[in-house]
């Protein structure tokens, strides 16, 4: 994985702009950075409840009725399709295609004696008016790579529902890997977990590469594509009940925040994918961020070092010597207006705080 130093991060003005966009959410904490994702494209068997439409219902009824009809063994009876057509009047060729479509849905089948018959699923569909429709398709699942890389941290990637958003492909080294068992484990999770993490409940199975299903082998290949997604992470909500953790995508070209629709929303257990965000910034990290902010502004090093730093969720309170404050005032710095934002930390995700500089 590429080191965080090679990644670009937004400046104070961009952060201030984002803050104004996000203000309605009443953010409690703010992080900015890059998510490293496994974009896992894999073949799955999905099961959807499918309502039985009128035409199919009538055709199934007609098939069932013809099945139940006693056969006359003496006289030469018309073919099954012709008998069915006497009920439905759609023409044998069209009826055959409708039956074939029903067979593909698993609702009808050709019985050994050559006539069409309802399957057990077809009979159940007639009773309930709907049926579980299994479809084989390729799906994309995103898994967020733990900060610092899974290999080093020992943590496994965590499923993240991205609501259709895409990251950008990202070059990785040979150490990049993904354990398919993580995906299988997600499929095996209970419904409550899937709902909580927006994992698609209709996905029942990851089609194995080796098994001989109706899907050709090459379509059963799982592909992992490394992606990077610039994001702003917001912890919003005052109380635990309404607390939610939101991720917003950022277009890196002009640091444009796509604040209208979050990329993902986590409620409980939001720190599971991002365990490093649960901890507050260290003193060293705060000091380093403060130094970096001061460096281009020509502040005296002894003044900078003399400041007392106290971070909270959204602020870095700085108790500074008078000379430093005066100098900032002379320079009409945003820091004195509460509009100077800095990023604390050196990882791929960094806490964004606003500077609150006061005279010590």
């Amino acid at each position: 994985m590429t080191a965080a130093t090679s990644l670009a991060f937004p400046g104070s003005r961009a952060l201030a702009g984002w803050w104004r966009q996000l203000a309605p959410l009443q953010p409690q904490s703010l992080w900015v950075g890059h998510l490293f994702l496994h974009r896992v494209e894999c073949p799955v068997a999905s099961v959807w409840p499918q309502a039985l439409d009128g035409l199919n219902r009538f055709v199934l009824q007609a098939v069932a009725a013809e099945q139940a009809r006693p056969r006359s063994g003496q006289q030469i009876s018309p073919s099954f399709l012709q008998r069915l057509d006497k009920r439905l009047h759609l023409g044998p060729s069209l009826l055959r295609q409708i039956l074939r479509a029903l067979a593909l849905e698993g609702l009808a089948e050709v019985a050994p004696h050559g006539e069409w018959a309802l399957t057990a699923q077809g009979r159940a569909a007639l009773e309930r008016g709907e049926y579980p429709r299994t479809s084989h398709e390729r799906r994309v699942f995103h898994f967020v790579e733990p900060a610092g890389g899974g290999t080093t941290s020992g943590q496994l990637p965590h499923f993240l529902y991205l609501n259709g958003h895409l990251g950008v492909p990202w070059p990785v080294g040979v150490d990049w890997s993904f354990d398919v068992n993580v995906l299988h484990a997600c499929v095996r999770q209970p419904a409550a977990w899937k709902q909580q993490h927006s994992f698609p409940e209709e996905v029942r199975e990851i089609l194995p590469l080796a098994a001989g299903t109706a899907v050709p082998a090459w379509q059963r290949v799982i592909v992992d594509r490394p992606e990077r997604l610039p994001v702003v992470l917001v912890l919003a909500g005052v109380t635990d009940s309404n607390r939610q953790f939101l991720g917003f995508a950022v277009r890196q070209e002009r640091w444009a925040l796509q604040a209208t629709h979050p990329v993902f929303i986590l409620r409980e257990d939001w720190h599971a994918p991002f365990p490093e965000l649960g901890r507050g910034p260290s003193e060293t990290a705060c000091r380093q961020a403060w130094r970096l902010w001061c460096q281009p502004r020509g502040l005296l090093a002894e003044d900078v070092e003399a400041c007392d730093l106290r971070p909270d969720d959204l602020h870095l309170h700085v108790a500074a010597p008078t000379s430093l404050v005066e100098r900032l005032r002379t320079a009409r710095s945003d820091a004195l207006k509460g509009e100077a934002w800095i990023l604390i930390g050196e990882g791929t995700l960094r806490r964004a705080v606003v500077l609150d500089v006061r005279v010590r």
Partner: protein
Amino acid sequence: MAAAEGAASAVPRSGPGPERGAPHAMLWEDFYRSASPAQQVELLSLAARQGLLYAHQFPSTNNGTKAKVPEPSAGPLHLLANVLEGHTQDLAAVFPPPVAVHDIELDAGQREAVARAIGTPDLCLIQGLPGTGKSRVAAEIIVQAAVRGQRVLLLAPGPAALDRVLEILADCELVCPVRCLGADEKAEHLPSFVRAMTFAEKVRSLREQSVQCARQGREQAEHSCRRRQQEGSLWPRLLELAESWQQLDNERAALRERQAQVPEQVRREAGAVTADSEVPAASPFIAALVVSAKTRRKILARIDAALEGERLEQTASQQILEKLEGLVAPLRPLAVARQQGRWWSPARWWALLHGDVVGRLVALESQIETARAALKESDETIQGLSAERATAEQGAQAEWAHLVDAEAHARQEDLDAQQEALAHEAALLQNKWDNLCQELELPGERPAAPAVTAVNAAHGLWQAQAGQDEERCTFARQWAAYLEGAAENLATRLPDYTNLVASTTATLAGNPHFGDAAAGRQNFDLLILDDATFVTESEFLQAARRASRWVLIGQPTMDGEQLPAPAKPASSKTSRSGAPGMPGLAGLRCGFFQRLWHHLHADPSRLPYAWVQEGERICCRLRTVAPDQRRWVESERVADFPEIELRILALPRLKPALAEVVFPAAMSIHEAKEYLYRELQEFPVQTPGRCLKWHEEPERLLLRLARAPGADAQPVLLEQGVREWVGCAQAEAGGDRPAAVWHTCRIEFERSAGWDRVRAEAWIHDRLQIRDLGRTACLEVPHRMRPALAAVLWDLLFDEVLPAERDAGSCPAVEFVAVPPLTRGRGLRDRIKAERAGRGVAPSPLAGNLPRSGAGLELDLAAPRHGDRLPSELRAGLPGRGFVNYLEAQAVVRRLEKLLADVASPLSADKIAIVALYPAQVELIRRLIQQAAPLQKIGASIPVELPGAFQEREWPVILLSLTRSHAHRTVTFGESPRALALAMTRARTRLILFGDPGTCARRSQWQGALDHLDDAAAGREGLLITRLVRYLQGQGRHPRALHLSEGSSA
């Protein structure tokens, strides 16, 4: 499988950001489809090892860049593009198994074509000359695909080819077709079976016919239910009748039983009667029996008493007799001794002592006689009494039996009367029963018999049927209501249920249901492109996106067509000749189909080898040496075999190459072949066959190269278990290319020597550099045409050799009617005279020279004064431009009259069609037919058209007017050589050409572009006419199949 986001939403194909379109942005399916087969195998292997693939492991192309990202649906087309460029080396050969065809009349070649088309993973090309059954094969492929649940897109450049296939499929329930209507087509002008397949007609059928039928079905079901309600009350009555019947039946049975017992009963009663029985008052039968018994007893008693007395007397007589005999016995010896004087006997002396012994003996014997007579009389008396007793006994028994029989008869009569009464009652019941059963409408539901069980059984079935009728009625009501409300909805779903869409290439894109607008929804498993020869590459590629596999059906190029030529849009401009541009023909340039065929088909006739006779010596040409390269050919002798000459082509700056090997006259072809293979490792195969056909037999593998079996072929042993069979054919007389004197018929591989199919194919590939990819199929059997006609036409048009077959037809397959007559040909004139004189010599091709220029009979209607040479009544109404040939038109009409009036083999009008190459000539012939008195009744029914109107249609007899007859210029024939070929191939049994031999001869001398024809087209036409002229001169491959007639005699 569709790619979709983890949740319900679909994933866009490419995401935002600067890397859009980069290799990693491609989806797996797109990448896989664009990868080479080797890359595909490598990727699958890697995925199997790792459990998944990483995008950065996708392979790069040779230049180090990642593989080009194809368009989302361009995957399969990638392969197509490769094949079109000739890159077939990565294609794995496929050999699909045979399929069980529905059309059982398909020949082996057609079945093979079907199997290959169905089994191909990507592309299959089927090539066949006109009349070889391409449409039937296309129809069978469609049926096979339908059986497999596949959707098929059938395309063709024109509607005629489509409709031909659809006609075959018209009654096939497996296929649910939709025929797309072209912009210039009107449904009402289509044949009924095609019209029924149009989308509009199907929707109309759903909206009107289905709804109407559903309503009728509902009414019928309701009627059935009402009838059932009425019939319900019948069953109790039927049951009551059945019970009555049952009771009556029991009574009758009891009566019959009694009747059966009457004799026994009477006998039993009589047996109990004796003479002493009491006589009941009301039983005269018993009384009579008693009287009879008493009488019998009385008579018998009297006889018995007499018998007793007689027997006593008899006993007494017997005793007397015994006593007398006892007295006689001692006296008889004494009397004998006395009478005979036996003095020495003591008996004599004793007799003397006892007095008159003899006298006493006589007296005693007399008494004995008397006693015996009495005894005899007594015996006779006893016998008489015994007889009398027996007679009396019999009389008594007879009387007894008579009394018993009379009694039994009387009782039977009584019972019969009762039986009759019951039968009458039964008849009444039966009548009631029948009337009641008639009230049950369906005979099958009536009780089988007037019995309770039968009624109950029938009632049970009736109730079940009534339940079904009730259910059917409910269903019919609901279904009719649904259809009335949802017919529109059903119409929108019709495309989903269509498994065959037939469209012209030009129409498909704009079709609202199956065109580009519906491309995402309506894709196909198989695209069948019929008449692919007439389709451009871009047209095909546009349509090819809609399917994952393609079957292209076309015909070989006319000999002389070049490969490949750029596609040129068809021109609708009318040429100077007045012939309109034929869709798909006029602007046709052979192109991608031939290119694909060239790349995919293993054609052994394209091998560069040739075996020719040079004087007495055999020469094997290993490569083609152009005439201008001859000067670079050097000759040298083989060191250890100086009789063999090697000719080496040593072109400047190129490596010398062995070009020809000439063998001494003493060496046979077999020795030469063995030598080449053994010493030079060369395997020069020359064959006219155009396909590799493998046949697997239990003991050997056969690779058949020639169409003819080669009965005279001889084997050449090449190596262990491999034999080449070489046949010798006669050189073509006057052929336009080196004669194929020796050709390889087949190659055999003995299984006992370890050969199998894989090894044999590899052997062939190594030595000949050709391999069958399993993606092409040749249709070689002319089904439509009479063999002799096919042989001539295939030779004329395609330079194809058909095996010469004996022609069973009574008339010539091809006839050329010369207009004007060939009066200059003396030999011909003599023969015609001979024919007229009845000497039975048929006209035959002219052996002598043809006129060197035309007779100038054609009239250009655009020229100011030419029209004046036509009768005024014909001139009016003819087109203002174009060519006519009045004499030729007259000849056509006369021949038509003759054909229709021929007593020996009369033809009906529906078996003849007339083709002319120019619209004005078409019109002129029509007018002449209208004016001809014998044709006035039927003339209107004979089609007279341009060639384009006859596409995909054929007639037993075609009369073709070539029209052109210019006095001094070389002229073309018709719009294009393809139009001419089309016209010539419309006949099934007989083709009659009308033309000016001189104009043809002049045309055959011209090379290069001519009139509206470019070099290539003019060359093709020139070649065709040249071959025709050769036939007129009595040459060609099948000279006996073409007969020459005089126009004036027609």
